[in-house]
């Protein structure tokens, strides 16, 4: 069975280590904050200038001056700090954020990612995504493995305009967890009940299948 959004978020959260500063993109990545493992503390960086993002505010706590990168009203945790956008991206570009999780349209086995623009459709812009993929060493891309019509999104080469080139090393899809090494996808884990064959069929880029591909614990 393909992972649900909640299961994807759970699996992402298993990558959290105690003391990690983490930047979570909009959507599934953000959900991961609900599944931080027992005994682990993470601090969320919001690229609009907040380290230590908390949960949504109570109605009476809503503050127009306190939002996240998705423009949602948020709160601050104890120990939070505020800074300018230049400082925020200095932090990101300089590699000080331990883990970045973001979505994508396509990833290829060279580690390139396309996530911000579909030519011919409306242009929205890359926001902070290009800085995030260029600045982080440790990135997890979360996405569906294939389109609704069965087209693989794990490609030999991205077809859409790139957000970053050769910067992605780990992809979590609804079917599998894969690393990217030496121009190949390495299958690390399967979603529960999903076979290696199903994954291989929906992976266009070169796929390496180790002898043992365990099921994810979600």
């Amino acid at each position, binding site marked *: 069975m393909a992972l649900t959004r909640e299961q994807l978020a759970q699996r992402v959260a298993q990558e959290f280590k105690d003391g990690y500063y983490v930047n979570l993109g909009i959507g599934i990545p953000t959900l991961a904050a609900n599944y931080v493992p027992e005994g682990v503390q993470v601090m969320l960086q919001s690229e609009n200038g907040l380290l230590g993002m908390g949960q949504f505010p109570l109605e009476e706590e809503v503050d127009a*001056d306190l939002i996240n990168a998705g423009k949602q009203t948020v709160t601050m945790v104890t120990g939070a700090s505020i800074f300018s956008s230049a400082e925020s991206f200095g932090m990101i570009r300089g590699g000080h954020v331990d883990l970045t999780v973001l979505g994508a349209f396509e990833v290829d086995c060279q580690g390139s990612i396309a996530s911000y623009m579909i030519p011919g459709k409306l242009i929205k812009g890359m926001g902070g995504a290009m*800085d995030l993929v260029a600045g982080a060493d440790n990135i997890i891309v979360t996405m569906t493995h294939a389109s609704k019509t069965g087209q693989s999104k794990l490609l030999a080469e991205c077809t859409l305009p*790139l957000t970053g080139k050769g910067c992605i090393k780990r992809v979590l899809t609804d079917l599998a967890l894969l690393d990217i090494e030496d121009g190949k996808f390495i299958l690390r884990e399967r979603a529960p009940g999903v076979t290696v064959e199903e994954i291989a069929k929906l992976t266009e880029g070169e796929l390496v299948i180790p002898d043992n591909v365990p099921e994810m614990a979600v």
Partner: protein
Amino acid sequence: MAGFDKVVNSYEEALDGLEDNMTVIAGGFGLCGIPENLIKEIKRKGTTGLTIASNNAGVDGKGLGLLLEEKQIKKMIASYVGENALFMEQLLSGELEVELTPQGTLAEKMRAGGAGIPAFFTATGYGTPVGEDKEVREYNGRHYILEEALQGDFTIAKAWKADRFGNLMFRKTARNFNPMAITAGKIAVVEVEEIVEVGTLDPDEIHLPGIYVNRLIQGTFVKDIEQRTVRQA
């Protein structure tokens, strides 16, 4: 109070000298920390042909979206221009030009513009459409592209509190692009919620020194919220 008093008494005076076809840098992220009254004054003035550098272009009818209504913007330099139907319409019709710039690069370009750094290398955008036609250089096995500084004829920005010398404090995430936007404007105009007497602000707690501020005005703010998300108690 003589030489360093930056306070002006009307929005008209605040934007005196702003002319058609100028480049304006605007602070703010989404609708948070935007110079909402200075934007309204530009609308009232009817200045056109503007190039505006700002992370976002407002939303329909709010923030910089107001300047789209009368087609006052010729070109937008921004990282994210979603949530704005009028923007898309003018973009697709060719009335509006957009230069999409990664958010961190945009912030750094403003900071560089204010700090006398004409250009810098960044890994952001290498190998993407942003890096096309830009110089590439390798440092320690990674590729970087050369990005140039950004300066404005005017900057319009918003801070929380100021003293009359223009020493500024920002509040929470309304800080965002405002500090470096202010440094990068030849004439930096800042509107604030409160102006206090000089000497009231602790020198160690000033977020941006008044040297960067040319004009200061106290305003009242609506502070629209784009995504009002709440949790239940």
